[in-house]
């Protein structure tokens, strides 16, 4: 009896010891991700900050690193973001309304849902090939902003649809029932009650989708190619370049100076992305629907 108890206690100490070791291992694992993130940010800041100045933001690319800037890429990114949103938001919200409010429960609805979740997993370069064939080629849009925006629009459409569906689903049923009780028809209820209540969620999803879109390089690269632009696009049919492509261009050059420019470009891109995410988080917290029974 005595012996069994000591054996148990010895085993218990061992089990607790192993538990402690693993606790430390798990902590280290978390540390790997966080340390990786911090190292990346420090590397970017150290290399990029010396190159970041007003001249850099307001000049065109150049063969001479000290004269180079990212104006055309910055303006291209803003253009692309606006055009992409103009296409993808109405379509994405429309699809979300259909799936949440109108769709019958049948095989076609099921197919659309499965299809959307699969589209979210298609590699972005494949969207680039789609855009290259259909928008650049068949629709004869050329290597233009519009072709790029339509391609990115399709790429982020699943994100907009999924976020909007969630926002619409979060609107309490009592809202709809109250409107129906007043004699509104389905579209009136959707337009007048559901959509306004869902707008913060839709906006958050849209901002996140746009921040995905402006960070994408692969599909845009397939469409715009590596252009050396010393003008700012003025119409949707102009050729264009965007920040990630300009960064890619600088990274792939062997000289150290261009690596510094790439880092400075990355800082600009990350600042834009972080501020977009901050706005999204603010909107989510500010307008979160409180579902009061």
């Amino acid at each position, binding site marked *: 009896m005595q012996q069994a108890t000591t054996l148990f206690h010895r085993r218990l100490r061992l089990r607790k010891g192993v538990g402690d070791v693993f606790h430390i291992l798990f902590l280290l694992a978390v540390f790997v991700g966080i340390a990786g993130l911090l190292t990346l940010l420090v590397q970017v800041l150290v290399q990029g900050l010396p190159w970041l100045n007003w001249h850099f933001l307001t000049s065109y690319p150049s063969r001479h690193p000290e004269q180079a800037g990212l104006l055309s890429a910055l303006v291209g990114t803003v253009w692309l973001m606006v055009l992409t949103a103009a296409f993808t938001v109405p379509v994405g919200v429309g699809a979300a309304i259909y799936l949440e409010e109108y769709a019958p429960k049948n095989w076609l609805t099921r197919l659309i849902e499965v299809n959307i979740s699969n589209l979210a997993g298609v*590699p972005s370069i494949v969207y680039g090939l789609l855009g290259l064939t259909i928008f650049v080629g068949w629709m004869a849009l050329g290597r233009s902003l519009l072709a790029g925006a339509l391609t990115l629009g399709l790429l982020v459409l699943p994100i907009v649809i999924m976020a909007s569906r969630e926002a619409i689903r979060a609107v309490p049923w009592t809202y709809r029932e109250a409107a129906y009780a007043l004699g509104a028809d389905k579209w009136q209820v959707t337009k007048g009650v559901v959509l306004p209540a869902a707008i913060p969620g839709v906006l958050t999803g849209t901002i996140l989708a746009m921040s995905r879109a402006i960070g994408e390089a692969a599909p845009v690269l397939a469409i715009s190619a590596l252009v050396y632009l010393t003008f700012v696009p003025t119409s949707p049919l102009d050729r264009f370049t965007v920040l990630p492509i300009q960064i890619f261009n600088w*990274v792939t050059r062997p000289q150290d100076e261009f690596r510094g420019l790439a880092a400075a470009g990355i800082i600009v891109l990350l600042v834009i992305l972080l501020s977009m995410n901050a706005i999204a988080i603010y909107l989510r917290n500010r307008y979160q629907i409180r579902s009061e029974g």
Partner: protein
Amino acid sequence: MESKLVHWLLFGCALLSIATTLGIVVSLLSQALGFFREVSIWEFLTGTRWAPILVPQSFGVLPLVAGTLLVTVIAAAVAMPVGIATAIFLSEYAPDRVRRIIKPSLEILAGIPTVVYGYFALTLISPLLQKVFPDMLIFNALSAGLVMGLMIIPMVSSISEDAMLAVPRSLREGAYALGATRLEVALRVTVPAALSGIIAAFILALSRAIGETMLVTIAAGATPKMTFNPLESIQTMTAFIVQLSLGETPHGSLEYNTIFAVGLLLFLMTLVMNLLGHWVVRRWQERY
């Protein structure tokens, strides 16, 4: 009348997603077929030399597939243990306060554009690795794979953690009542109960790694090669597509159509993995 019109309009929006899938298939197939008229599918899938723009030409895609898998395996070797351990820590160990700081910080990793990871691999990780392996080229599969592993950690950890959080407290409490330690509860109760979600997280993260483009284009090199040596420069399927679409290859030529054949293969590989991932979640999910 108006409501009928609205109904159809909304239906059209939803159908656009189907049209997108069709568009992908049609645009890839139409040009890949042009390629397969001149190069047999068998030669494409089993050939071990990829040299579409060299003389003599050769169209065996296996070197690109090998390069893709090599980088993916390295990424998985980093992201799987780290991702799962992170998920276990967040769901079983971390107090709520800590969780609320760590989780969003890790998700920043998932939001960073992939060209930034390419820059990171090329300008910091590769030079560091060269100190350990002096003969290694600056472009290599190892540094691209390691950084890709870092990139997909949040994907593995957040899907796994969601699955672990869905395991009911009562199961854990039952095990604690029997005298299990925290580690035993985590490894013998939570992880097995959440296994379908964890496996799905793996599959989806791998599919993401296979389709990742900019990181490998920048850091892994441009030399298609049948090798499993991570210190060598290789080329992935995605990096090849970028390389060729940036070149001066004329539209419609055999060389140009290779990107659609490679794109089709890439699309099918990731599609199978995504379907499998979603299927695992649905089929094996434990319901409580």
